[in-house]
């Protein structure tokens, strides 16, 4: 599947998300919206539904896959829990389609700014912290691969 880089910066996408959540007055509406977002997430590639791609430290099952295409990092994610899947869809929207360097340089701030519960924002029980950590580690690893390829003179298409 051909993928295109994000047109906006990570920070700009985060601002968009925070703004869209400001439209809701009630916590229930926010959660219903998150659940809907999860339902609309593109299907997770089945070949990556393996233990290697499981994010540990989550109460629900969470999968995260990353690939680098033309210097841009793309993420796929899934969960068997609806709220977590919705939160993953936001994480993918924020971080997918950016360079590893931009991802490394931009720690997420949108979750704290979204007006969700403290429990969700602390990101412990839903494992979102682990997801962000793994996304960052992917970015660091791919950045290192890119550097070594450049250094060894491997040409890129």
């Amino acid at each position, binding site marked *: 599947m051909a993928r295109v880089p994000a047109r906006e910066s990570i920070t700009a996408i985060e601002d968009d998300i925070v703004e869209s959540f400001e439209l809701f007055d009630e916590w*229930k509406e926010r959660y219903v919206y998150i659940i809907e977002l999860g339902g609309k997430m593109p299907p997770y590639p089945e070949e990556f539904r393996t233990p290697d791609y499981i994010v540990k430290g989550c109460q629900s099952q969470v999968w995260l896959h990353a690939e680098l295409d033309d210097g841009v990092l793309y993420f796929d994610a899934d969960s068997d829990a*609806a*709220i977590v899947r919705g939160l993953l869809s936001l994480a993918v929207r924020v971080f997918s389609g950016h360079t590893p360097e931009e991802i490394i340089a931009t720690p997420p701030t949108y979750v704290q700014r979204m007006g969700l519960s403290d429990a969700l924002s602390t990101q412990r*029980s839903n494992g979102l912290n682990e997801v962000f950590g793994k996304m960052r580690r992917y970015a660091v690893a791919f950045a290192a691969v890119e550097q070594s390829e450049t250094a060894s003179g491997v040409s890129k298409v």
Partner: protein
Amino acid sequence: MRRFTVTNMSQVELTTSYDVDAIRADFPILRQTVHGKPLVYLDNANTTQKPQSVIDATSDFYTRYNSNIHRASHLLGELATEAYEGARDKVRGFLNAGESHDVVFVRNATEGVNLVAQTFGRQNIGAGDEILVSEMEHHCNIVPWQMLCAEKGAILRTIPVDDNGDLILSAFYDSLNERTKIVGITHMSNVLGTVTPVAEIIRAAHSIGVPVLVDAAQSAYHIAIDMQALDADFLVFSGHKLYGPTGTGVLCGRKSILDAMPPYQGGGDMIATVSFAKTTYNDIPYKFEAGTPNIAGGIGLGAAIDYLTAVGLDNIAAYEHDLLEYGTQKLLSIPGLRILGTSATKASVMTFVLNDIHAQDMGTLLDMEGIAVRTGKHCAHPVLERFGVTSTVRASLGMYNTKQELDALADGILSVRSMFG
């Protein structure tokens, strides 16, 4: 012989009319709101809240007489030792443990099982020997035995449960044989709520000389336990589920067996004499209590037992039974909701799934309504597998819960259900 006077009778009347409002007033944590809603705490099988008297007892220790026990030649040390050993006596009374049993303080029920597996187990269980546990054990009564089996080449066998969550007793009798070296059995399942026929299991095991360890972590705060009547060889429970402090637990064991067991951990307090040539060990229970224990916790556990005894476990059991029936009916009226565990003997636990709504989603959304439940696998993976589910929601009762709170739970579940369309 004491006779009942009119005063005594009126006290009996008083304790049978269960004043839940007065009980709730003793638990300061219940007064708060969570996400702007009154806290509805239904995660008691995980840990219970603490009455003010328990909080005061631990605080009083640190405020007035904090000192190490068993080795101080000063007043504070005397007071601390007296309070800590007094708590042990309270545990003894609470379990009706007689001359033939002794009380060992441990960190929790889990440590109690590990202690038995690592001492009695290593001493008495060898290659080809069998350890028998039920399919509905908490991991604390599975994994320590698996570790022992891996070390010794012994075999862990399981007693299956039926669709209601009752033990299949015929399978127990079939599995019990001359190679069985110990039976480990939960008194009450933390997932299904089933109260198991431990007395029958102990009688049957003893008839061929097999000792029994009872995991009373879930039952001890719901059901009165009588060590002498049960004749259990080992019984463990955790203080934090008994309205007491975390990091406290009890292993009550038969003295003759405890005496013959090797020590668990080495260090201070568990020795009689130490030299580099030869160290001799202290008597039971101190032989199993190396190092400075959780003194404040032990004293707090004593206060929790005082509190439970004042309310009366039988009163609590009757009240909780009524709540369980009410809550079960409420939950079953929700379309698509399935309760796991329908034993006629069950107590205080309602574990359920609702359509294909993930338990974690349910837990997160109930939390927003101020309702605290446990979600997941409850440290009992095998029994969830037995019932063909991967994750469940568990609402579990304590002595301070009310029917209004169960109404709030049912309303909360219906609200979650509507959010999933």
